[in-house]
């Protein structure tokens, strides 16, 4: 089986390529990249006026399976992923049962392989049951297919446990992903602590709850020599702490979500529960700092924190609504807005969705180097479309971007050289 992607603008940031080039795919791998490639008996994919980029990678999704299939499952989640241009997703362990043992990891890998859409990289728990008390069997988790560990959804409160987790994870070269919030400082907060929360009479989550924990985890990474990846950075202070640490040579990477670089706390007005997330949407100053962090490379990763919830979990009072929104199908156009707004070059934007995430979790993906696995996303950058939440392929429709006019869409998504999504066929 051969596929020839012809006539597109190939952007492969890992190899510093941005040129009019064809890509030949053979046996699931990139066989050749060049001008005017020809191959008899290859299926030709016309990419004229399209971008051809390494398959997008999302290192932070919640697929909800096992345990919460009413919100999402591996099938629906990876279908949403490939429709959004993502060929690889790393799924968080806060399932039921928790992915804190090799049985759950194997189940996820096996199910994802059966579904055959995006590649799923499971992320194991740092502590058993996400309880923050004792370390999970990280060695076996890695053997079963986990690419990192995290207790995402909650921080590892106990500093000693986090220290030991980093020391232990280092033995298996597993990055430790920090969900950074000091819960005591968060208190009962439900949105960013600031003027909007004060006006709306909602309890605030102050930025220092995030900064304090990012600082602790960065220092622990420096102390232990572990690889730290900070999930969903949302504050100016966190960006500054990470930037300073990177300058000192600490092995720390960071991600930001499209909603945190697109929206501010103002989106909560009207008590819109689709603007309720953790970390919360922050102030305009924070958004500016995050964009600056993306631009200067402090934040090398854009990740969605795709967090599907059932309608009934959102259609309630703001205080009791669940945190999170779906993101797989909106991340690409929201990232391309950063290009339009001059925050990132097109190549940088693609890097934040491909080689940046691959590097953060040490995944053998994210480039179109000849010989590498042929995960490819073809994008129509000019395609203007209106997001209708009800049309999302995710089982859940919780998005604050309903009705937004967006630009840019994946038209073809190839995983291991196989076309798993074609926008014309949907």
């Amino acid at each position: 089986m051969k596929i020839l992607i012809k006539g597109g603008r190939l952007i492969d940031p890992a190899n510093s390529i941005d040129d009019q080039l064809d890509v030949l795919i053979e046996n699931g791998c990139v066989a050749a990249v060049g001008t005017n490639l020809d191959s008899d008996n290859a299926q030709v994919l016309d990419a004229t006026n399209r971008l051809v980029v390494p398959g997008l990678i999302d290192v932070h999704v919640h697929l909800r399976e096992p345990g919460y299939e009413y919100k999402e499952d591996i099938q629906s989640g990876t279908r949403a992923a490939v429709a959004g241009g993502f060929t690889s997703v790393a799924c968080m362990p806060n399932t039921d049962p928790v992915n804190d043992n090799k049985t759950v990891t194997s189940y996820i890998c096996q199910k994802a392989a059966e579904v055959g859409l995006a590649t799923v990289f499971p992320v194991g728990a740092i502590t058993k049951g996400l309880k923050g008390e004792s370390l999970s069997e990280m060695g076996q988790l890695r053997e079963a297919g986990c690419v990192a560990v995290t207790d995402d959804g909650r921080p590892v409160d106990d500093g000693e446990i986090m220290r030991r987790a980093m020391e232990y994870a280092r033995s298996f070269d597993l990055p430790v992903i920090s969900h950074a919030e000091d819960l005591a400082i968060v208190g009962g907060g439900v949105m960013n602590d600031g003027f909007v929360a004060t006006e709306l009479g909602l309890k605030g989550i102050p930025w220092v709850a995030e900064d304090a924990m990012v600082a602790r985890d960065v220092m622990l990474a420096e102390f232990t020599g572990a690889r730290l990846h900070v999930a969903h950075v949302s504050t100016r202070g966190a960006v500054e702490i990470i930037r300073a640490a990177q300058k000192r040579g600490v092995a720390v990477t960071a991600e930001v979500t499209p909603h945190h670089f697109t929206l501010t706390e103002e989106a909560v007005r009207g008590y819109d529960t689709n603007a309720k997330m953790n970390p919360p949407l922050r102030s305009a100053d924070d958004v500016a700092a995050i964009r600056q962090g993306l631009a200067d490379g402090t934040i090398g990763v854009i990740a969605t924190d795709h967090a599907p919830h059932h309608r009934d979990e959102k259609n309630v009072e703001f205080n009791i609504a669940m945190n999170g929104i779906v993101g797989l199908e909106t991340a690409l156009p929201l990232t391309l807005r950063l290009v339009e707004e001059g925050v990132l070059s097109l190549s940088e934007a693609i890097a934040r969705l491909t080689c940046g995430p691959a590097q953060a979790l040490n995944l053998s993906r994210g480039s179109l180097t000849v010989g590498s696995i042929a995960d490819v996303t073809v994008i129509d950058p000019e395609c203007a479309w209106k997001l209708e939440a009800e049309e999302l392929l995710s089982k859940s429709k919780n998005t604050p971007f309903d009705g937004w006019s967006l630009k840019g869409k994946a038209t073809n998504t190839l995983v291991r050289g196989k076309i798993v999504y074609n926008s014309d066929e949907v």
Partner: protein
Amino acid sequence: MSFGHKHILGIEQLSADDITLILDTAESFKEVSTREIKKVPTLRGKTIINIFFEASTRTRASFEIAGKRLSADTMNISASTSAVVKGETLEDTAKNLEAMHPDIIVMRHGHSGAPHYLAERCGFSVVNAGDGAHEHPSQALLDLMTIREKKGTIEGLVVAIVGDIAHSRVARSNIYALKKMGATVRLAGPGTLLPTEIERMGAEVTTDMNTALDGADVVMMLRIQQERQGKALLPSNREYSRFYGLNPENLKLAKADALVMHPGPMNRGVEISSAVADGAQNVILDQVENGVAVRMALLYLVSGGEQLAEQSA
């Protein structure tokens, strides 16, 4: 002038003209409560449901009396003890209420934004009787009515609001209302009870009560909610009353004819000493009396008051 609001969700959405119209209407209704037959036929045939998810004897009674004096059919639902405990969501509640075809729902709810939720989804008028730490518009309006009655005007007055600003919907509604009517608002409380960037609402903010009281025309004391003390917000009642309690001594810092207000119920000896609570300057019972008149005005105006104007006159 006409009143263009179907709902009363907060003072934030009202203009100074709206507020003046409400206060004028309330004044004309106040007389009804002094008649021998305390009833006008204004809202005859209208159904008003008071649904209170939080206990509040006085606000609920005040709304209920207001509805009855306007001849509406009023009924009370205490949701805190029944539906919610059984797992009923606000959406279920909204659907059930709608099925009863009420004209007005008066709602008190522990979560900020709950009345907005109803207003967006239902056909009836919603009057917010207090939502979380957000707004308590009828309370602010009755405070304004009382101030206007005693001082003749609101514009140019200095109003000190002292106490637990962070958790107070009364404070937020009053800041909006007083600012719109041209008063200067000073807020005072310990740092733990002053919410982030509250000064952006247009009030002067201080942690020193005496600074707030200095030359004030009105002193509005807020209730200290004893149940919050465990959360490291306050060291003790004794400490609080020492620095933020109103007593005859510090009241002297305010103007000699300053009004003392309190939304009730009072913690005597904590935020207010009995000497002040029972003193000549307090207008606390006037507030209660005006509460009925203000709520009559609100119910009347949200039901499209103008057409009814001649009938009730």
